[in-house]
């Protein structure tokens, strides 16, 4: 809807918050590499993760303080997730999973700050992350098992005449993974922030007399959204672990 887009530029549409604005125009050989608000918030997320981990572990005390125990907790959380889902063979992929989890988590949580920008509410960002996971997992699978990796698409113990159908289904479900992985995160963030904006609009529309009921609801929704921000980062990382497990351990 063109009118909706025009309206959105005014800042009243619930979708105006997802608008990408160019801050510094950079053009490298015809490729638009401008610094946008999305870029800035990604950099803020990376800086925040670095500060969180580096300052948290600066003292490295045997009995951790509050900050250090939070940093250790996040490490142990991802390490435990990898241990449960992949086993010991997955330990070498810990840095990747940890980076992925922390990046998605911080982007989601920073998006909860009012007037900030949610990087993960754009399909292109989440799809890039999911595509890296998908391509990486496929390469790991072929590198470890060679052509045997194709056995992943052949379920064991099914009648032979069903196999042609099942192989096609397995192949489609494998190829759809990056799409579902990225759309899940993107749609959760988009829906959550749109919903908050819509209810915020109710507060303004009802004014000081009737606005309290939607305001209370917005407060509750904000709590839910913080839970969802964490949960979606967890789901993204867990599904990456599950895909990795398929590629490494190859039992179907």
């Amino acid at each position: 809807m063109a009118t909706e887009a025009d309206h959105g530029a005014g800042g009243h549409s619930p979708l105006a918050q997802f608008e990408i604005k160019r801050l510094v125009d950079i053009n490298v050989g015809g490729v638009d590499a401008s610094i946008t608000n999305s870029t800035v918030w990604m950099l803020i997320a990376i800086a925040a993760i670095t500060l969180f981990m580096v300052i948290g572990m600066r003292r490295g005390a045997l009995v951790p303080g509050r900050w250090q125990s939070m940093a250790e907790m996040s490490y142990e959380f991802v390490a435990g997730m990898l241990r449960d889902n992949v086993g010991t063979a997955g330990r070498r992929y810990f840095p990747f999973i940890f980076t992925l989890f922390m990046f998605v988590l911080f982007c989601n949580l920073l998006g909860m700050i009012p007037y900030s920008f949610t990087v993960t509410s754009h399909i292109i960002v989440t799809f890039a992350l999911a595509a890296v996971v998908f391509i990486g997992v496929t390469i790991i699978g072929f590198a470890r098992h060679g052509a045997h990796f194709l056995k992943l698409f052949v379920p064991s113990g099914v009648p032979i005449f069903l196999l042609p159908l099942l192989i096609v289904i397995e192949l489609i479900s494998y190829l759809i993974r990056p799409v579902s992985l990225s759309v899940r995160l993107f749609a959760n963030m988009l829906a959550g922030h749109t919903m908050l904006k819509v209810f915020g609009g109710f507060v303004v529309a009802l004014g000081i007399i009737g606005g309290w009921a939607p305001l209370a609801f917005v407060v509750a929704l904000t709590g839910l959204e913080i839970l969802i921000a964490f949960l979606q980062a967890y789901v993204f990382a867990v599904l990456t672990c599950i895909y990795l497990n398929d590629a490494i351990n190859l039992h179907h």
Partner: protein
Amino acid sequence: MEADAAKLIGAGLATIALAGVGVGIGNIFGNFVAGALRNPAAAPKVFGNVLLGFALTEAIALFALVIAMLLLFVF
């Protein structure tokens, strides 16, 4: 029928998917509570799986949202 009206009707119809998702989420938490009452000691261990199942089911609802958004804003 006008194209705009058909678009709005289509977007509304896309939200019917919520019925299935409601069943799914109710199923997950209902079964979790039933299981947790039978064996409260095992409940914390599966709660992570419950949340995972909840998030996966909720994502199905959001696919419907994406369809509705596509119908409204893209076509």
